[in-house]
């Protein structure tokens, strides 16, 4: 285990531990050392842009959970759930439904309003892994078609709840008419508060936790609410779950941009003169709505820093400069560093008094530091 990741919840440091630099980091440096300088002489801008240094730095962060969690929690599909998604809620796309587990419910448990994901521990630390998890295919089958055959897992939490995203991803597939159901099963990040829904709500994504072993009727709802996603409000996360790096700020560089808000995407800051520690810090705010939404889909056990994989990006037919696009991102990424947690950082419990845990989340700040000196 290597590195340095700090997690601040409601302005309090709750977790700090080393991370792991994976083989992708070494491969990136080898790429840097061997890219051909002759490309600078090519008049074609797209070709010469391969030499732009931004193609070789950290450009994204992503989150995920344990492999087994992708077959549990809000990823579970049942006919009654599909009925609820398509009928009871008026066909709205912004719904997360989850069955409370630990059946049969005891009298005490029936009063709990915090979801505890069914999950096992994430994959053991392995520097050769190219993704956060070995496999994250969602096992649900909708109308006889495996969702993973249309949207295979990529080792992390996807971002397919917003209607524009799941409509586009399922377009021209056998499940195009059921894209809302597919998006709700695949998850995992709520819509932003500024978004609109087909049901006409003010935004965000409604969630409901049901008692019983099936989602048989709205009256079985144990607790419910609305999560407003920060990632989707800022359009900082693409459909694959990568949060874009948005700004640099170097305190010793007079020409640098001012530090941007960590609510807008992944921020990087640091200095390089001999008077400081040579530390580069990547920071990001995980919004309370995003924490709540991710928790219903299995929580957050993994995080990863990613650079652009320029070889894969070029092979996909995309040439630099690579602009970030949430729906059709031309950037292909390469894993640089990972952090796996032994506890779900999106966990929540009911607070004393009337505060239900599910609606009592606060923002979480991630500070990921890499020490170069």
């Amino acid at each position: 285990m290597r590195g340095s990741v700090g997690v601040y919840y409601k302005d309090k440091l709750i977790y700090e531990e080393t991370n792991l630099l994976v083989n992708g980091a070494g491969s990136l440096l080898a790429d840097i050392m061997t890219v051909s300088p002759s490309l600078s002489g090519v008049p074609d801008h797209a070709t010469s842009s391969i030499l732009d240094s931004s193609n070789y730095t950290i450009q994204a962060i992503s989150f995920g959970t344990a492999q087994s969690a992708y077959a549990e929690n809000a990823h579970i599909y049942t006919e009654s759930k599909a009925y609820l998604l398509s009928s009871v809620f008026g066909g709205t796309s912004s719904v997360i439904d989850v069955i409370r587990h630990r059946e049969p419910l005891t009298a005490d448990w029936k009063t709990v309003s915090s979801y505890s994901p069914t999950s096992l521990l994430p994959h053991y630390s392995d520097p050769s892994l190219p993704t956060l998890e070995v496999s994250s295919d969602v096992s649900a089958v909708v109308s006889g078609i495996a969702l993973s055959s249309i949207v295979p897992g990529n080792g992390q939490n996807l971002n397919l709840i917003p209607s524009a995203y799941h409509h586009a991803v399922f377009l021209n597939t056998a499940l195009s008419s059921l894209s809302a159901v597919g998006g709700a099963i695949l998850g995992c990040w709520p819509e932003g508060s500024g978004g609109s829904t087909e049901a006409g709500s003010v935004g965000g994504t409604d969630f409901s936790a049901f008692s019983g072993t099936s989602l048989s009727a709205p009256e079985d709802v144990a607790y419910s609410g609305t999560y407003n996603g920060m990632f989707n409000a800022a359009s900082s996360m693409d459909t694959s779950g990568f949060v874009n790096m948005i700004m640099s700020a170097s305190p010793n560089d007079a020409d640098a941009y001012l530090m941007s808000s960590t609510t807008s995407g992944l921020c990087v800051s640091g200095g390089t003169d001999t008077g400081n520690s040579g530390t580069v810090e990547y920071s990001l705010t995980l919004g309370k709505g995003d924490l709540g939404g991710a928790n219903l889909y299995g929580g957050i056990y993994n995080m990863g820093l990613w650079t652009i994989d320029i070889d894969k990006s070029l092979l996909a037919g995309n040439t630099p400069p690579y602009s970030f696009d949430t729906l059709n991102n031309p950037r292909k990424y390469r894993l640089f560093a990972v952090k796996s947690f032994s506890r779900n950082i999106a966990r929540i419990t009911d607070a004393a008094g009337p505060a239900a845990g599910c609606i009592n989340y606060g923002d979480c700040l991630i500070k990921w530091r890499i020490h170069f000196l």
Partner: protein
Amino acid sequence: MRNFIDDLGINGHLTIIKKYNDGEEEIVFDDHNVIVSGMGVGLAYLFTGSGSNVITDYQIDRFQVGVSGATSLELSTTNSLSGGLNYSEYGNGSNLFIEQCTQIIGDKDLNPSAFALIPANKVTRIGDNAVRYTLVVDEESCNGLAGQAGEDEYLNEVGLFMKNPRGATVNASLLVAYRAFSIIRKTNDFSLIFRWTLNF
């Protein structure tokens, strides 16, 4: 706390070969090298976005040889060769291309310093995470080195440099790897080949 270089496990290996005019080769040195803090400084410039905007400025494309090496310099804090050669000492008739530019030494800049450039075709990727640099000091280079009092001087240190991580108008290079070795009196009877492999 372990730093990026430690965590990533960047290391290197240096083999020095004497190649005589008749084709005979003799390995005179074969050992690990030292990755110095300049590697971290250069990469920090890259990852903070505060250095050059061109990735080739972060490449290792030059080296120096010197005459005052010592094992006591094989530390991560070493930031320059103890006795790097000047422009004329590399030899006017050699095939080396020598560039005189700035050298970053701690918080100071030394200008000018002489660097021998590594041709791009001498930089070879030999694995997913490994790069080999082949530095050739040919028969006509670095011969007959003498000190100020006329005494013979011997090559005994070598360093690899990152080209220009700050993105300065005039290249400002940074020592990233260093190694001292047993003394070699360079003559025109042989060329010296430094086969240097870095594992990232």
